[in-house]
């Protein structure tokens, strides 16, 4: 498998706090890779660095072998590298269908496509995806009126609508009703298998990440602590120490 995303020696500091210290990791095309670590270990900072939310202090980030660390957020998104947010972000004043319609990928389209009628393209796909995440019944409700868990599902559908090559999910199951989590894991796997989307997932729920990911990276105190297959990570004493506070 070729590497889709390569993070090489990336560092990011905020004032005196080193949030990421020379992190290197690889996400192969078509894989599902996990990123774990205690609170404050720098997972979201790494995500933000990758998608161009803030400049990095050192190192390089390549997507399809192309250096992206100097690109701006929308440019990176238009390359097909998309992220969802930990504090779910949707367009609260639009209904679910509209949220999806505006998320349709326009990577290969000129600016003037904005001046075409809303439902002209993508409406069927939007309804399919709402069905896929289980929100079809709610399709005409304002997204802002949905529950947090439903908004999370909507955000996932919006990401799928944009047909990314790689999707970075920041805690996809946080705040979701535990009985729905298995369904979500199943959907994430289907998105990977059926739509061919490479997934890179931050997750705190160990059961979820062990079920989902083929390969896991663990961060602690801004450094890459361990990597390996889920079973190895689960048994790694350094990882257990990091979570239980032996550091």
């Amino acid at each position, binding site marked *: 498998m070729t590497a889709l995303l390569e993070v090489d020696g990336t560092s990011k500091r905020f004032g005196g706090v080193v949030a990421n210290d020379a992190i290197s990791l690889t996400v192969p095309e078509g894989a599902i890779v996990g990123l774990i670590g205690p609170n404050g270990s720098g997972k979201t900072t790494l995500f933000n660095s990758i*998608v161009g939310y803030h400049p990095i202090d050192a190192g390089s980030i390549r997507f399809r072998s192309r250096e992206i660390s100097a690109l701006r*957020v*929308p440019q990176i*998104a*238009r390359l097909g590298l*998309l*992220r969802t*947010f930990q504090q779910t*972000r*949707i*367009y*609260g*004043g*639009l*209904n679910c*269908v*509209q949220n999806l*319609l*505006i*998320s349709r*990928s*326009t*990577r290969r389209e000129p*600016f003037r*496509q*904005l*001046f*075409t*009628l*809303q*439902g002209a393209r993508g*409406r069927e796909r939007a309804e399919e995806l709402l069905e896929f995440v289980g929100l079809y019944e709610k*399709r*005409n409700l*304002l997204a*802002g009126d949905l529950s947090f868990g439903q908004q999370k599902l909507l955000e996932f559908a*919006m990401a799928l609508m*944009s047909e990314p090559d790689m999707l970075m999910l920041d805690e996809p199951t946080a705040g979701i009703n535990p009985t729905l989590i298995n369904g979500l894991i199943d959907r994430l796997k289907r998105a990977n298998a059926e739509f061919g989307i490479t997934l890179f997932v931050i997750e705190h729920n160990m059961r979820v990440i062990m079920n989902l990911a083929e390969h896991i990276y663990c961060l602690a105190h801004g450094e890459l602590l361990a990597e390996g297959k889920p079973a190895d990570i689960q048994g790694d004493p350094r990882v257990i120490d990091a979570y239980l506070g032996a550091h």
Partner: protein
Amino acid sequence: MNPQKMFLYGAIVLAGLAGPFIFPNNQVQMTELWLFIVFALTWDLVGGQMGYNSFGNVVFFGIGMYACAVVQIGLVYDVGEYTAAKGGGTAFIFDLAQYIWGFAIGLPVAAMLAALAACVLGSLVLGMRGHYFAICTLGLGIAAGEIAAGWDWIGAGSGMTPAPPPHDIDNVNRLFYYMAFALAVATFATIAWLLRTRFGLAINAIRDDEDKAEAMGMFTTRIKVTAWVIAATFLGAAGGIYGNLKRFIDPLDTAFSGATIGVWMVLMAILGGKGTLWGPVIGAIVFQVTKELFWTYLLGWQRVALGVLIVVIVVFFPEGIVGRVRQMFPERFGPRADAREGAE
């Protein structure tokens, strides 16, 4: 379009066409009303639909006003000599053809210059968000007024008189009325269409969560500048008509009057209902009628009354008339249950 809507639009257009014949004494106020509708609609496109509260839209209005006047005069006479004579000389006479050509060229130039200004200023200030943007636009309005007040070629602080109408037009205000009416209809039609396109969705998305829109691959600054340019185009043309309607352009009190027109356009949109298509139209109508009543019956206290009205609006109707009606009658005016119907 359903028959009910067709009937509504038809009735409004008919009323608009017949207006000056039914109420000939209120022709000027009605002309103002159509222009106010343009102000409110264009403000709301950026302030309501896109969530960028601008206090500087009056810049484009003022630019349009001066640009139109300068073209009208410049086509026939030397602008510097004209303004130096303070518009008082009898040497500057315009015949009918010159006058009409002045508008035919002046209004498009006014619209284009205003659009150009929005493009340049927007690229500079639309990277800012929230309060920073609002305060910055406030500064733009003041700066533009000061520049105009210091520029001798356009009359500086003593202002400028647009081309005097020729004597063979006996009711020139009727000409202004129909120009204003046509502009209001064009503005409404354009914005109604825009809101049904992906562009409408995009600016709503920017209002709801700009970071998300960027993360989804939208070049938000480009979209924001485009919205401002569209608003400025119509405002520029409105300025061109307004200057002629008022017969005199004062740089601070007419053209770049942030404290009156600049605030009024925000108020009308809020009064009617921010972020709705009909809100600004209804807001402008209610505002203009109230304002004229105050000027008629509360003379001397009209500005105080207007100030009280502003406070009442902001405190008791923050969601506006349309917003309030939607809350009270959700089944009739609320968000459509079937979005398919709403989008087509």
